[in-house]
């Protein structure tokens, strides 16, 4: 990467790599990397530029969806590469972008969102219960159960179950019914918010108070104060 000045930077508390090295296989090629670093740092350490595959670096954006396998274990698991440490003998590869279909909708205009699910995502009720999506989810969401809850109209449960969903999309490529469970869940959660959740009364009152100029007197008073007076004042409530 040419656009840089970072090389000069030293860490306030110096990056301390463990002297112990482990061998990992990245996209089929073996590399020696310091024990304990994250998979993404292992890629950097191995000299690989990564653009697709890095996002928040904090376990929230799902950009770094990765397949991995530990030594001698045949099971291929999933993880977020920014939030997983390397182990000796581990093999891993990024998940390529998967072309799942997202339905488009205008939530406010929907008349019967629970029914509309079946026109927007007609594949959703065709779930064959294989549970592959649940096994693929790095956030340990019971994805299969979520798909059923959505189909049965329990959007509230879906919205609670999928609050941890980072939209990494790892549940989609494994689905034998071509469902993208995360997108179905996102639709159900938003519909829950738009159509099936109470409007908070206190908020409406506060907006009305602001429109009616109920705070004007207080504004007039405090905007005239000096910094020192402002330090020591509190606002009157309505």
């Amino acid at each position, binding site marked *: 990467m040419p*656009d840089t*000045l970072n090389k000069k930077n030293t860490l306030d508390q110096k990056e301390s790599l463990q002297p112990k090295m482990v061998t990992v296989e990245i996209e089929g090629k073996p590399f020696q990397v310091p024990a304990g670093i994250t998979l993404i740092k292992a890629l950097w350490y191995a000299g690989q530029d990564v653009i697709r595959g890095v*996002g928040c*670096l904090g376990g929230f954006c799902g950009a770094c969806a990765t397949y991995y396998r530990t030594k001698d274990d045949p099971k291929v698991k999933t993880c977020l590469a920014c939030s997983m440490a390397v182990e000796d003998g581990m093999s891993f590869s990024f998940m390529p972008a998967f072309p799942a279909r997202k339905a488009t909708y205008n939530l406010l205009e929907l008349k019967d969102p629970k029914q509309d699910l079946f026109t927007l995502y007609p594949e959703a009720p065709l779930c064959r219960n294989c549970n592959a999506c649940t096994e693929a989810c790095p*956030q340990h969401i019971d994805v299969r159960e979520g798909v059923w809850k959505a189909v049965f109209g329990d959007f509230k449960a879906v*919205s609670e179950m999928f609050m941890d969903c980072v939209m990494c999309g790892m549940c989609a490529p494994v689905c034998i019914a071509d469902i993208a469970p995360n997108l179905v869940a996102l639709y159900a959660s938003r519909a829950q918010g738009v159509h099936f959740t109470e409007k*908070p009364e*206190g908020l409406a009152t506060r907006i009305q108070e602001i429109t009616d100029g109920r705070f004007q007197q207080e504004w007039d008073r405090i905007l005239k104060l000096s910094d020192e007076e402002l330090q020591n*004042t509190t606002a009157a409530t309505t």
Partner: protein
Amino acid sequence: MELTDQRNLVHQTRDARRSKSFPKLSPAERDSLIKKHHPDHRAHAYRPIIFGPNAGQSTVTEVATLLEGESPVPADLDLTPAYSVDVLVVGGGGAGCASALHAHAQGANVLLATKLRLGDSNSVMAQGGMQIAVASDDSPVQHFLDTLKGGHMKNDHQLLKVMVEEGPSIAKWLLELGVLFDRDADGNLHVKKGGGSSKARLLTCSDYTGLEIMRVLKDEVLNKKIPLLEFVAAVELLSDAKGACTGAVLKDLDNNRFIVVAAKTVILATGGIGRLHIQGFPTSNHFGATGDALVLAYRLGVPLVQIDTFQYHPSGGVYPEQLVGALVTEGIRSEGGHLVNAKGERFVNELDTRDVVSSSIIRECEEGRGVRTPSGRVGVWLDTPLLDVEHGPGTLDKHFPAMVRQYERYQVDIRKDPVLIYPTLHYQNGGVKIDVNGETPVANLFVAGEASGGLHGRNRLMGNSLLDLMVFGKRTGTLAAERSKSLPKSSLTLDHLKRFRAEAKRHHVSAGIISPMVLPAYTNK
């Protein structure tokens, strides 16, 4: 002493600590603590900027060097546009998505370009919540006062008044889009207390507030079919003969080609600076937080404000090594978590403002009361198990599922054991100068979100950023769209760059550094 023994001290002292409260510091004590220990006051890290709109003013070397850097765009670049739009939004975080949606709602022809994927940003990581004065015992005026005190009275009053007053209508907008804020039993929005605030004012979606807002906004950008360029970064702006902004030069990171965009208005929503690792600090920020808007706007002649002050969040991870710099949510302290030094003592009121709390942690560590990790870092304890003791078992699971998971991945159970923390580079307090509509002094160039400056003074209060993004996303998007209707097509030139290069030459600056940075160079070469 082994880490386990150190940790036991936290368990042993918990009951004694619970029975005592720790007083807040007086304004004078706060000031002297900050002057002595806050990284903003380490003179050796600062230098004056040599030329440009902020010439002579001091900022950290990392930022000064980038501002004086060289544009990657050659003077003779063919400026035939690949796109011609009303509104170009640069950045796909919270501010960018909000601007794009509001501009689209006004009927403008919008293009959104972002460096990584849509939504890969700082916004998606916001856990603590969003401050809006909705509670009946609260008011926008009190929100204003708290923010001002937190910002050391240096906040721009006009920007701040706009933000606090428009807060409630923003909450309404987000609810209408389906954002699921936590509720009280009576259906009202649940509010939590945040550091530096006199009232409970934080709206939350458990500890996934930013993620929930971003899932919804991203989905809506896609529903509206707003044209999107992902893995495309803005590297230079374009101007006309009058110096107004008329578009941008983007760079496609997949094939390194330039893309010229003619835009009647441009909104920069590129977020913060964490990845500059100012003063060598680790950071909580996303991969693309390299301060690009500061550089782009500066070269077009826009001044920056309060660009000498940064927020070091008190609780960045220091152990395990994989979590170094990662944010440990402030929510833990809001709900009563203690900070504890190596002697098992509290040393600050945990709900004081971030600059005070960070300074006190640095003080403890500098004066030898920090705890060493096996890899040689220092930090202090954040007593997480205390929350389950105080509010009943299951509190951490219920209120902080993201954090429980964050540590579980490395076999640390925060329900049983405290965690080690040290300040992490978190937020750019200042930024590009804007007015109440988010417009810069250069016509038709807008800035929204963390990239802009003035609103937060010298220390941003927790939860005010998410609100800032939504309010100024709305204002910039709406005005840019309206403005573009009456604007004729203008010319696309790099005249400002010619002037900038001439000035660099006149000052004998040849840093040899290309800016904006776009992405940090972490790859071993």
